[in-house]
């Protein structure tokens, strides 16, 4: 059997869990196994019915009063007991920030190791060959896992399509779990100062990365944005340096956008950035490193110095518009 983790906050589903269901169904089809979903919750979880509508052997609610708010200690204890009770071959999850936090701990308790952030897999001789991106997206690595089941695998967001998860009807089961000492207390999650720009509505975005070198040079990017009628956005290091406010950050910890045109200036294309903009209509990358991963998803690329390209771009756009 394959266990799939259903992540939620106050019983509101994290949609990447549907990708995990799709992944588990695919692996199950290849290896001849059924998948079962696991929802850690305090009790009557309204999510159960929704998840039971997928093609799964069953939906297991791991139940405890201590599972209302996420803590790594409580989640690790819950998972340990569910795994012991069900003896799965695989445990499949989406590689979210929450999963990164507790899943390696659970694997360690079983003397196993998590293969994390996997982008695709293939089945070979009844086992999986898993592919991860390494060196900040510059290379791919195929991995195999030794030893016996259970095997722990997490998939990168977007590796599977949530809407391709097969529908069906699953039985529901509850496992009461005993949670030991929780050594951390959580406050309520919150959002930092309300965003003053909503880049999700932008039609054209000019985004700058570390290649812009200094705050002063942002003026050049702004001129390009003005010429195109675009909004200015940035990769994380630019916002970390406070060269632009955090509400301009694109990526997993910032905004997710899908404008008609996205122009990336001096951005390498780390996965945490790409997840926030890969669904843009047309992607243009200007980067002096021809092997930068941003070119893997770009429709048009200029391999070269942005400080040479951008002034010419601005000139030519103005000419074209005149």
């Amino acid at each position, binding site marked *: 059997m394959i266990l799939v983790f259903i992540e939620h906050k106050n019983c509101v589903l994290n949609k990447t869990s549907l990708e995990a269901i799709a992944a588990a169904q695919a692996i199950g089809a290849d290896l001849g196994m059924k998948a079962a979903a696991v929802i850690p919750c305090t009790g009557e979880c309204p999510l159960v019915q929704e998840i039971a509508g997928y093609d799964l052997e069953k939906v297991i609610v791991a139940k405890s009063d201590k599972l209302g708010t996420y803590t790594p200690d409580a989640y690790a204890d819950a998972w340990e007991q569910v795994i012991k009770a069900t003896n799965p071959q695989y445990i499949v999850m989406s590689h979210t920030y929450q999963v*990164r936090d507790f899943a390696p701990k659970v694997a360690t308790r079983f003397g196993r190791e998590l293969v994390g952030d996997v982008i695709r897999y293939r089945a070979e001789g009844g086992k999986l060959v898993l592919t991860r991106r390494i060196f900040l997206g510059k290379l791919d*690595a195929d991995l195999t896992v030794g030893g016996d089941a259970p095997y722990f695998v997490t998939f990168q967001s977007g590796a599977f399509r949530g809407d391709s998860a097969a529908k069906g009807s699953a039985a529901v089961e509850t496992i009461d779990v005993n949670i030991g000492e929780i050594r951390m207390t959580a406050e309520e999650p919150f959002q930092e100062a309300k965003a003053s720009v909503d880049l999700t509505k932008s039609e054209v975005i000019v985004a700058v990365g570390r290649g812009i070198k200094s705050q002063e040079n942002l003026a050049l990017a702004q001129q390009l944005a003005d010429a195109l009628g675009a909004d200015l956005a940035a990769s994380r290091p630019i916002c970390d340096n406070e060269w632009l406010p955090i509400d301009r950050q694109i990526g997993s910890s910032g905004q997710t956008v899908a404008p008609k045109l996205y122009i990336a200036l001096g951005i390498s294309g780390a996965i945490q950035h790409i997840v926030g903009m890969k669904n843009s209509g047309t992607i243009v990358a200007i980067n002096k490193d021809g092997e930068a991963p941003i070119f893997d998803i770009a429709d048009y690329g200029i391999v070269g110095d942005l400080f040479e*390209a951008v002034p010419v771009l601005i000139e030519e756009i103005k000419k074209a518009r005149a």
Partner: protein
Amino acid sequence: MKIIVLMKQVANKDAVLRIGPDEKWINETDIAMQTNESDGYALEEALRLKEARGEGEVVVCTLGPQSAKSVIKDALARGADRAIHVVVDDANKLSPYQIAKAIADAIREENADLVFAGLQSDDASYGQTGVVLAELLGIPHGTIVIEVDRGSLGESLRIKRELESGWYQWFTYKLPALFTIQSGISQIRYASLKGIMAAKKKEIREVTAAVEAFAAGQTISKVYMPLKTKQTQILGNGDAKAGAVELVEKLKTEVRAI
């Protein structure tokens, strides 16, 4: 108060990577190396916490070959008090559990109040050494920490974790505890000349790692250039200015954005 900071040497961000002859890693012999980015922030946060507290010791721990000494020396120059070097020649062949186990064995008896690590390495990016280590040491952990409430330090410590899409959450942990630190948590200091001189006298304890075989570990069978998902039209043929002219043409005729 004692803080151990895990720091790793990785290939320089801008280095041109060549796949090694066995196709299982890159050829590391002739490329520039640097301290893993988030590890540098982990050190900075440890130093600031010690300064805020007015006492304490910051101990750097590095697992890697002799060449990783440069990471240690840099950390000592920035203000770490001493270092533990877990010497392993082919560290890139170790699985995350093996790495965490070797580090756990090397630091367990230090009985640190806090262990800080970067949230992931910029080479293999397993992103789990810290979490596995915490479990092996029997202490709680928190990942992707973006702020430390230094004033709260006592029997416990309050930290802010980054969640997805601009959300955050504060947690308070009983100590000892381990935290993995996110890049950008603060501004990293440079080593001063005085710091560089002082570093020469600081202790670097070498530990020969007893790396245990680990049957359940993951092994890299092949590394290769990523498969392209899109057909990219490269414009200008290496000439940025010519590329810009061609791009505007494409934006006009194909994308219709102008």
